[in-house]
C-alpha cells in the first residue's frame, strides 16, 4: 500500500481541523488514503508544495497564480468547489448613497480588504481599472486585517464594511461569500446596497506539481469527486467547506487575476 497523499491547507478558522479530519476519514480505507498538514498562511503552504513537503495544496486563486509563477506553469489544478467557479466581487455602499456603479466611485473612498485578498483588494482594483474610472481616480482605504490568509477569514471585509458604517469610506469591495453571510441587503434594511457585481471568476483549487504523478492523484481525485451532497455522511463536510459538489477546475476563470497580478506587479513570492 502506498503512503498517504499529503494535502496542505491553511488554518483560517478552527473548523479547518474538523473539515480536514472529516475529509481524511472519507478517504480512509480506500486506495487513495490521505493526510493533511495545516499552515498559518498561503506563503508557507506554496513553499511547502514547491519543496515537496506536501503533495497537494488547497490553494486560493492568488496562491494558484503564485504557484504557476514559481513553477513556470508546470503545476496542475485537480478540482475545485462548485462555488469556486462562480465567485464574484460585490461593491456595496450605504443604502441610498446613490453611487450607482463603478463610475460613481470617482473621487470617493473605497474600503478594500487585506491586500493579498483577490476578491477584496486585487480584483477590485482591476475592475476599477477595466470597468470603472480607474483606481487612481478612487481613494483606496486598505484594511489589512488578515494578511497572509488571502482574505479567507473574511475579517478584513467585515472591517471594510464597518469602515463604511463609520463614515470613513463611501463603499467597500467584498466577496460574494461575505455578502451572502451578512444576508445581502435583506437582514439589515437601511445598511448596505450593492451597486456593482463583478463577472464571475474562479477561486480555490487543489494544486499539484509534476513531482506527484497523475497515477497518484487520479484515484484521490476520483474519490473526491464522488462526495455526495445527498449522503448524510458526506454532507456536514461539504456544508462546512461551502460547496455542494467538487467539480473539475475551470482555469479560464483565473484570467482576470493573472492579468491583475501582472498589472499591479504583485510579486510571485513573499
Amino acid at each position, binding site marked *: 500500500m502506498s503512503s498517504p497523499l499529503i494535502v496542505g491547507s491553511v488554518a483560517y478558522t478552527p473548523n479547518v481541523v474538523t473539515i480536514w479530519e472529516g475529509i481524511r476519514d472519507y478517504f480512509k480505507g480506500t486506495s487513495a488514503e490521505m493526510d493533511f498538514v495545516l499552515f498559518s498562511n498561503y506563503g508557507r503552504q506554496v513553499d511547502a508544495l514547491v519543496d515537496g513537503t506536501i503533495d497537494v495544496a488547497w490553494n486560493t486563486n492568488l496562491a494558484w497564480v503564485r504557484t504557476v509563477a514559481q513553477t513556470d506553469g508546470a503545476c496542475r489544478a485537480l478540482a475545485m468547489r462548485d462555488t469556486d467557479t462562480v465567485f464574484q466581487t460585490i461593491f456595496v455602499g450605504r443604502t441610498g448613497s446613490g453611487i450607482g456603479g463603478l463610475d460613481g466611485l470617482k473621487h470617493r473612498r473605497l474600503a478594500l480588504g487585506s491586500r493579498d485578498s483577490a476578491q477584496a483588494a486585487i480584483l477590485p482594483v482591476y475592475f476599477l481599472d477595466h470597468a470603472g474610472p480607474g483606481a487612481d481616480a478612487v481613494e483606496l482605504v486598505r484594511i489589512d486585517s488578515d494578511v497572509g490568509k488571502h482574505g479567507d477569514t*473574511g*475579517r478584513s471585509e*467585515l472591517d471594510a464594511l464597518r469602515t463604511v458604517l463609520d463614515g470613513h469610506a463611501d463603499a467597500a469591495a467584498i466577496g460574494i461569500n461575505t455578502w451572502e453571510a451578512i*444576508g445581502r441587503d435583506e*437582514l*439589515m434594511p*437601511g445598511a448596505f446596497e450593492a451597486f456593482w457585481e463583478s463577472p464571475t471568476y474562479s477561486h480555490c483549487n487543489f494544486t499539484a506539481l509534476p513531482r506527484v504523478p497523475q497515477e497518484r492523484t487520479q484515484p484521490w481525485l476520483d474519490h473526491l469527486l464522488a462526495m455526495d451532497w445527498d449522503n448524510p455522511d458526506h454532507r456536514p463536510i461539504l456544508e462546512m467547506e461551502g460547496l455542494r459538489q467538487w467539480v473539475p477546475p475551470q482555469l479560464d476563470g483565473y484570467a482576470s487575476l493573472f492579468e491583475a497580478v501582472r498589472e499591479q506587479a504583485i510579486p510571485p513570492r513573499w
Partner: protein
Amino acid sequence: MVNHRLVLDLVERVGTAARHGTVSVSLGDGDPEQLSATVAAWCTRTGNELVAVQGNVATVRRGRSLDPLAELAPDLLPGTRLWMYTNFDCNLACDYCCARSSPQAARRALGIDRVRQLATEAVDAGVAELILTGGEPFLLPDIDELVAACTAALPTTLLTNGMLFRGRRLDALRRMDRSRLALQISLDSATPDQHDQHRGRGSWERAVAGIRIARDEGFRVRIAATLPYEKTHELGPFHDFLDSLGIATEDQVIRALAHRGAAEDGIELTLESLIPEVTITAEGVYWHPVSADHDDQLVTRDIFPLQEAITEVRRRFTEQRAHATAAAQWFPCA
C-alpha cells in the same frame, strides 16, 4: 434604530467558533425585540442556531446543535425500556434501598388495570422491554397476572429478592412465561456477610436458594449486586460464585450504590447526570427508577397516554443536554 454592526459582529464571531461551539454577541443599541429578530433571521439564513438571548447578549451556536437522542446508543434511548413499580412494600428493609421500601412502607400498588394498559400502550410507543420492580413484587397476590399482562405484550424482566419462592408464590412463579420473562434477583456478595449486613440476617442464604429454585424452574436468572463504588472492581470471587450457580456472564450485573432513598451515601445521581429511563409508579412518571421516590425527578402525574409521557421525558432530556452543552462551553475558569 437598527444596530447595523450586529450582523457583521455575528459573521465575525461565529466565523471564529468551532463547529457546534457557541459565541456571545452583544446586541448593541436599539430595540431589543428587533435586534433579537435580526439575530434569529441571520441564524436561520446561515444554518446556525440562536441558543438564547439574555439581556443584551445573544448566544449563538455555529451550525446546528447535535441531537442528544441521536448520540445515544439505541438501547439507551429513553422509552426503549419501561420500568413499572408494581408496589413499594417489601419483606426486607435494606439500608440503602433507593425506593425506601420496607415492611412498613405503604403498598402504593400500580394495579393490574394500569399495568395492563401500560403494557398495551408500550407496544405502540415503541418500548422494547418491560421491567417490573418494587418493593418486592412477590408480595402482591396477583403478581402472576401482572407478569402475564406484560409478557403477553413484550419481553419482560421481573426484579425480586428471590426469597419468597414457596407455597402460592412458587405456584405463581411456575405460571409465568419462561420464554418471555427473565428474573433479576438481588445478591451482593459471594458470602453472606456483606449481603446480610445491608439486607438483613439470613437474607443471603434465602436469596441463593431462590436463585437455585428459579434456575431449576427453567427461568433465565440475572443477578444484580448493589455495592459501594469503591468495591465495584474487586469482584473476582463474586463472579466465580455466580458462575458456579450457572449465571451467564452477561447476566451478572454490578451497580454502584446510589445516594438515593434510604442510602446514607453513594454516588450522587441527578437529573443532569442520569440518562432517563422512563419509570411509572402509582404516583406518576419519573425520570429514572433509582429516583422513583423523589419528587425532584417526577416528570408528570399523568401516566396516560404513555406515548406523551415518553415524549416529555425525551423533550426534557434534549433540552437539558442542550443547556448543559452550552453552559460547559462558556463556563469561565477565571
